[in-house]
């Protein structure tokens, strides 16, 4: 390809694709052609850039200018102004919520500033569908290094010394796992990449596949060499079509280059791998279930030990590592264990990818050094809570994790601190909640999820989650009893103690952690039939304040069940027997009027005291 003066790095991660990234690509190319710039400017597709809340987005290089919320109508102007005339377009740049002036440069945007990229070092810089792009960014140099100058034991030693721990949730030291498997007598041995990502709101693994599949492949080849493996599996859920497509393409390219297959780079070492698609059962993220699924059996976990590293797939020694763990391996080999182990805390080394979602200004995918505090993540990178609401809690570790309250916002993010706080690192989901979130409702949501996903093998997990769900449903419906709290605690702990796999032993976490930190909310639901966050539908009512209502009919027209009585210039009234508590009236009532209120508990008695519409009184001047 001839040289260009500008490259448009267009994000084509799943989020931006859903937002129309490929249509934007077409429009960009058409406009570039129209302005006669096609010899000077090219559009490069990249994987997930990370700042998903701003999508569809792109970065203009070499200027390093970030544009978000792109739509096709803006493209002709953008091409003419920036690409032709060199005048960057302010209105498409990112403006932090508290500021008026946009921040043009990607490197100056607070969301990116505090991040440290190791596993995601190539995101937004390479085209994930081109192996040459990866190779240009020092791709496969770690493989060169081990094949020409390191023995398998050297490699394992380097990984052990780096302090790398599993990024899938458990946090087991990666090098040690490799060593256990290497010393097993039985052959053949296998390695597996676990890309069965199922936590609600989490998409770290998917993004690594979509933005840089070769880093996973290179990490796995290195692992295979170290452990003594000639065949590997990638287990990915079938709901990730784009990730699987890009990984499949990457595997084909790696084979063409002789990086997979027989006699890799002339070294005499043989290794290849294949993708196995799972149907999206959450329990398959658990390693023994995953192994059963690859073997074609039902996805149920089995008792450990023996651990998979001793006896895994087809009863052979098997190392299973998460996507992110594999992605770290080439960097550790290239830059050395000493460099890696300087990042992070005493027991948690390196960086961690999180998907930062929920009630947060800057939604997206981030990679941060271990030991960073939740406060830095929520306020500096995440840009705080929208609409000046108060931060209430952050849920880490997905449905197996717990909710960490505001009082613990200065907790450093590492394996031990999060566990101590009643949550866990997990694979990296991070859901931020504001004051409008009901913690009992959140606990119910996660139990509903794990209850659906329980494989049913252990009674405690299967029936225990049923029991938790029933009690939580009663509480949120206003039918809670005082003894319920004791039951939740007792049942939660029993499920933890008596279930076999990680799903069962962690599923009570959302309940237990909210009970610990937000007990007052549970008590309000039970004793006062009140939902403090005004979320639980059975415990709230909407009213129209007569002194504020202007009789504009807006809520009346928009009310889906037709529960609002009134006429023009008459005070409107909500018929509580028809109201479905959808909140539409609250949304449509103009902010300067603000006549609709939402109440709970005692306040739900008819506070307005009026039964029939009457004319709006004219204000005295």
């Amino acid at each position, binding site marked *: 390809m001839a040289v260009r003066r500008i490259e448009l790095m267009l994000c084509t991660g799943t989020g931006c694709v859903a937002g129309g990234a490929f249509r934007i690509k077409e429009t960009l190319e058409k406009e570039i052609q129209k302005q006669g710039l096609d010899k000077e400017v090219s559009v490069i597709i990249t994987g997930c850039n990370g700042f998903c809340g701003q999508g569809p987005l792109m970065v203009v290089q070499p200027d390093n200018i970030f544009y978000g919320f792109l739509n096709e109508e803006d493209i002709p102007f953008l091409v003419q102004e920036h690409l032709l005339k060199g005048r960057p377009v302010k209105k498409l740049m990112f403006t932090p919520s508290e500021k008026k002036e946009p921040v043009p440069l990607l490197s100056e945007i607070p969301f990116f500033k505090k991040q440290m990229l190791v596993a995601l070092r190539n995101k937004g810089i390479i085209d994930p569908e081109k192996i040459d792009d990866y190779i240009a960014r020092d791709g496969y140099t770690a493989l060169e290094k081990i094949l020409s100058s390191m023995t398998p034991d050297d490699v394992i030693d380097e990984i052990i010394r780096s302090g790398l721990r599993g990024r899938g949730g458990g946090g087991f030291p990666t090098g040690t796992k490799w060593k256990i498997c290497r010393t097993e007598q039985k052959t053949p041995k296998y390695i597996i990449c676990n890309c069965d990502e199922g936590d609600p709101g989490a998409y770290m693994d998917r993004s690594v596949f979509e933005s840089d599949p070769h880093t996973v492949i290179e990490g796995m080849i290195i692992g295979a060499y170290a452990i003594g493996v000639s065949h590997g599996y990638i287990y990915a859920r079938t709901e990730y079509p784009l990730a699987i497509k890009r990984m499949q393409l990457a595997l084909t390219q790696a084979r063409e*280059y002789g990086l997979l297959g027989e006699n890799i780079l002339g070294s005499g070492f043989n290794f290849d791998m294949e993708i196995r698609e799972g149907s999206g059962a959450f329990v398959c993220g658990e390693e023994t279930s995953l192994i059963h699924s690859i073997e074609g059996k039902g996805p149920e976990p089995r008792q450990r030990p023996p651990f998979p590293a001793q006896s895994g797939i087809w009863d052979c020694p098997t190392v299973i590592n998460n996507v992110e763990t594999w992605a770290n391996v080439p960097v550790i080999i290239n830059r050395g264990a000493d460099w890696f182990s300087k990042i992070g805390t005493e027991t948690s080394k390196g960086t961690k990818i999180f998907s930062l979602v929920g009630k947060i200004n800057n939604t997206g995918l981030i990679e941060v050094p271990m030991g960073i505090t939740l406060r830095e993540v929520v306020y500096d990178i995440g840009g705080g809570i929208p609409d000046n609401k108060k931060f209430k809690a952050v849920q880490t570790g997905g449905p197996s994790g717990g909710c960490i309250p505001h009082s613990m916002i200065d907790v450093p993010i590492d394996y031990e601190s999060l566990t101590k706080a009643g949550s866990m690192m997990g694979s990296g989901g991070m859901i931020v909640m504001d004051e409008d979130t009901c913690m009992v409702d959140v606990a119910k949501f996660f139990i509903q999820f794990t209850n659906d996903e329980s494989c049913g093998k252990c009674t405690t997990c299967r029936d225990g989650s049923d029991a938790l769900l029933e009690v939580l449903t009663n509480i949120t419906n206003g039918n809670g009893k005082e003894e319920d709290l004791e039951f939740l605690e007792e049942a939660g702990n029993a499920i933890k103690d008596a279930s076999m796999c990680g799903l069962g032993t962690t599923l009570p976490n959302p309940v237990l952690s909210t009970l610990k930190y937000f007990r007052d909310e549970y008590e309000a639901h039970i004793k006062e039939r009140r939902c403090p966050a005004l979320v639980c539908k059975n415990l709230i009512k909407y009213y129209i304040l007569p002194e504020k209502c202007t009789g504009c009919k807006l809520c009346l027209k928009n009310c889906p069940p037709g529960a609002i009585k009134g006429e023009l210039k008459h005070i409107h009234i909500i018929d509580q027997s028809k109201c479905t508590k959808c909140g539409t009236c609250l949304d449509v009532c103009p902010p300067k009027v603000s006549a609709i209120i939402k109440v709970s508990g005692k306040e739900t008695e008819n506070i307005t005291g009026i039964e029939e519409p009457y004319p709006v009184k004219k204000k005295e001047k």
Partner: protein
Amino acid sequence: MAPLTLDELRKKRKEARKEIYLREGEYKSKIIVHMGTCGIAAGAREIVSAFLGEIENLTEKNVMLTASGCAGLCSMEPMATVELLNSPSVKYGNLTTDKAKRIFKEHIIGGNIVTEYAIGIGSEKGG
């Protein structure tokens, strides 16, 4: 395609690096072509093509070519500003493709300002 040897992979990497240099942001010099309406009308686009052609011939792509708006001296268009690392920027005016090629060779590569085309050295001071 036949599988690569170690040496072939290294050679491939060297080639591949040239393709992604725009994204890595390490430059020794920067050329800014002024692309206001006046600049474009006076032929700034040909100047861009001329510079781009010169960059193409470089083995190490460490020159950044970018555009900016009108520099305020419309009668001297097409204009370009050349910035070498750690030296003051130099503005050139009344450019032609031949002049651009000479500036590239002597100033960007050679490090010597082409004084006969230069119209100013250093940036304007703000009040």
